[in-house]
């Protein structure tokens, strides 16, 4: 066969060397430092501000939505009867005065006068009645379990409403003050425009009104000039949705956006050293904790008694984890140690300190509980974009526990499966799906809109988030929910928290701290526990 020998460069036309040179250039094209070095940030005009967010609130309807992300929109557009100050304490908003009946089952609210909705209608008691009814309608708001005791709301006379509860609720005022619940919407607007308009062109009484929205891109707000309270600084605010963390950080650097809500934690260190920008940190309501199944009597696989039902084993775990290292080294300071409640919470006791890191004590406790040779365990972790660092935290925890004798294997699961496994009431049916023995948890008692709520929902026997049972604890919590006198409530909360701490109901790892990043021509003072951008606290320098 006759072949023509080619020249060495080959018919496929390029030498390996040149290709690889290009490859090296391609993937290592970045200078090591100063990559995200910025030019000086331009001054921000009071006319317009652009804010970058990583998550988009899907629903703008005030009564249909449920959950923290919707708050990004709610806090600027809607208001409730009460609001919270910077320390998360309830203050008057659309209600100026209120009173509670002696039996704690009836509340009367005097409404503020001279308030207008964004479309110009005046705010009246009819709107409150309408809003309460709509929010309590299971067809509108599917999750009613936490307000099933709010029976009705009626207008007594002009400017006054009365709310009836079916049982006492020491948290009721805090509930009304929270930006998620019972937002006031306009009945007149609803009658005129209907359900659809509530979502497509929402209307409230807040400092900003809705201008337009482009799903997956942005939403725009404009200052409401007839707002009843002090007017905020910026005339127009555009919220841009940028899901990818690297792009979000880059957009701030280039000046395309002026402000970033929940700035990616891995970029915080570097930005704080960059001139022209400012970082404001805020503590949030999330506590990352280690949820331990102490309810099960036996190990589902082997049938042996559940070691983690023993308080000493749990205490050993609590002492085995070096939280300071996790917070300072892994999270680079974007976390805070927690014992049970947060300092802002009702019933916080500064004498209750987070579980100390004491490896010797941990091993001793394990031996005392009857496991001198250690225990084998599986940790169910969470992966995905929802919680940054969840993977690494899990690995660190597993390593610490293994060093103390609890040989931990890590199994990471995606959010859907994690939800199933984390619900102690639901997974009871399918034993293989039950959380055993422990795993990643995302909320704890601290940071709820009221301690009583947090203490009930997270640790009371039989609730979906609770993985331990204590009659003593339940009794105290029951009593809290029968009391309405604030001093008594506080004392009982402190007591319950102490029981929880001593019993090691779970092991808090850290309280999440988020960062807001902005050009240094801006300043921002967020409400504690908040992750949203309340524009009224955002001001030019």
């Amino acid at each position, binding site marked *: *066969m*006759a*072949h*023509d*020998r*080619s*020249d*060495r*460069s*080959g*018919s*496929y036309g390029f*030498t*390996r*060397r040149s*290709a*690889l040179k290009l*490859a*090296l250039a*391609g*993937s*290592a094209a*970045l200078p*090591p430092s100063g*990559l*995200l070095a910025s030019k000086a940030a331009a001054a921000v005009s009071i006319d317009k501000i652009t804010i970058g967010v990583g998550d988009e609130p899907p629903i703008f309807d005030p009564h249909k939505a449920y959950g923290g992300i919707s708050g990004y929109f709610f806090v600027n557009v809607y208001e409730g009867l009460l609001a919270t100050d910077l320390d998360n304490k309830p203050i008057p908003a659309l209600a100026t005065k209120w009173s509670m009946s002696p039996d704690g089952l009836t509340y009367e609210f005097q409404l503020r006068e001279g308030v207008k909705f964004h479309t110009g209608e005046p705010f009246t008691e009819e709107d409150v009645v309408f809003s309460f009814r709509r929010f309590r309608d299971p067809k509108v708001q599917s999750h009613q379990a936490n307000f099933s005791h709010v029976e009705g709301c009626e207008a007594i006379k002009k400017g006054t409403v009365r709310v009836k509860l079916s049982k006492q609720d020491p948290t009721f005022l805090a509930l009304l003050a929270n930006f998620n619940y019972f937002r006031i919407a306009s009945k007149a607007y609803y009658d005129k425009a209907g359900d659809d308009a509530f979502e497509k062109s929402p209307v409230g009484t807040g400092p900003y009104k809705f201008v337009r929205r482009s799903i997956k891109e942005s939403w725009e707000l404009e200052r409401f000039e007839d707002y009843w309270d002090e007017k905020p600084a910026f005339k127009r605010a555009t919220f841009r949705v940028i899901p990818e*963390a*690297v792009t979000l*950080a880059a957009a701030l650097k280039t000046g395309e956006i002026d402000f970033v809500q929940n700035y*990616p934690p*891995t*970029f915080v*260190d*570097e930005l704080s050293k960059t001139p022209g920008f400012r970082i404001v940190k805020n503590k949030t309501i999330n506590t990352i904790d280690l949820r331990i199944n102490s309810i099960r009597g036996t190990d589902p696989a082997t049938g042996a008694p559940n070691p983690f039902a023993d308080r000493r084993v749990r205490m050993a775990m609590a002492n085995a984890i*070096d939280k300071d*290292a*996790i917070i300072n*080294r*892994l999270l680079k300071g974007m976390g805070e140690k927690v014992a049970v409640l947060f300092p802002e919470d009702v019933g916080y006791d500064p004498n209750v300190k987070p579980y100390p890191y004491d490896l010797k004590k941990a091993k001793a406790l394990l031996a005392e509980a009857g496991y001198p040779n250690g225990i084998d365990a599986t940790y169910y972790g969470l*992966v*995905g*974009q929802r919680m*940054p660092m969840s*993977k*690494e935290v899990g*690995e*660190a925890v597993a*390593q610490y526990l293994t060093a103390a004798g609890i040989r931990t294997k*890590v199994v*990471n*699961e*995606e959010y*859907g*499966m994690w939800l199933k496994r984390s619900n102690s009431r639901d997974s009871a049916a399918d034993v293989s799906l039950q959380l055993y023995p422990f795993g990643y948890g995302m909320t704890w008692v601290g940071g709820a809109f009221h301690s009583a709520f947090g203490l009930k929902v997270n640790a009371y026997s039989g609730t979906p988030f609770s993985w331990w049972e204590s009659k003593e604890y339940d009794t105290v919590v029951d009593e809290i929910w029968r009391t309405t006198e604030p001093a008594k409530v506080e004392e009982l909360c402190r007591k319950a928290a102490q029981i929880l701490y001593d019993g090691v109901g779970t092991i808090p790892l850290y309280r999440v701290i988020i960062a807001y990043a902005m050009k240094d021509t801006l300043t921002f003072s967020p409400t504690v526990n908040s992750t949203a951008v309340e524009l009224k606290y955002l001001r030019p320098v």
Partner: protein
Amino acid sequence: MEPLKQVTGERVREYSGEREDSLVTRMASGIRARRWTGHPPVLPSVILAIVVGAAIFAPFLAPFDQDYFDLGGSLQPPAWMIGGTSEYLLGTDNTGRDILSRIIYGARISLLVGFLAVGLAGTVGTVLGLVAAYFEGWVDALIMRIVDIQMSVPSILLALILSAAIGPGLATVIMVIMIVYWTYYARLVRSEVLSVKTRDFVSLARVVGCSDRRIVFRHILPNVVNSIVVLATVQLGTVIIFEATLSFLGLGVQPPTPAWGSMLADGRTYVGSAWWLSVFPGLAITLTVLSVNLFGDWLRVKWDPKRRRL
């Protein structure tokens, strides 16, 4: 990312198997000279040898165990920079693990995923393609419809739904890749077998009295094997990148298992501050995939049927 090239080859070949001659001979006559080298490209081969070597000898080459980490030493820069030590040549990641060791062990995972997934996909696809081309008729139609259906969904979406259903992890990645990529082999094999079947020498063989099976195994299969190997070689690179994409979406290989793709995806948020977390795995991926591609190109040219014609 779809392995575009090999299906390109399929289309070109079906276009240019025997018919290519008629196109050219319509415009011209004679056979033109082609440049061609007999030996494989040097640098890609060397790089691939290094990767395979790293995978096999990882425990001896890597300075640290793949799981070992120390939070105290996290985010150390590479040895030649300020703050770096010679202990961790390429620096450490956010939990303090040695990047060099993870890259060496990561070669194992990447190659494991590559060979296993591509092998499975190739086997399933080849068998089904052969079946389709051999039996023709409704069997062919059924298999090709399934292929059409599957190829109408962007592969990453299918992979994502399946991964969300099964749960993240190494086994899932391999299984998902197999499910996504078998269709390319099926189409390629089927079209090759069909096109060879129509050739003059096949008809001649039939006239002479050779059985179908003899034709398939003696004449058709040798041609097809070459194409399959070329496809598989290039898909090796594609699969490595696919794993990285799955990790980017959060559903790839899970820690502590080191894989270049997940190292790159997880490290990307440190690209401004601790660039070594992502740049080194990125380089490993790029060099390996580039070498695999170039090698596959060389194979394709080497085994081009136009040259075997005479």
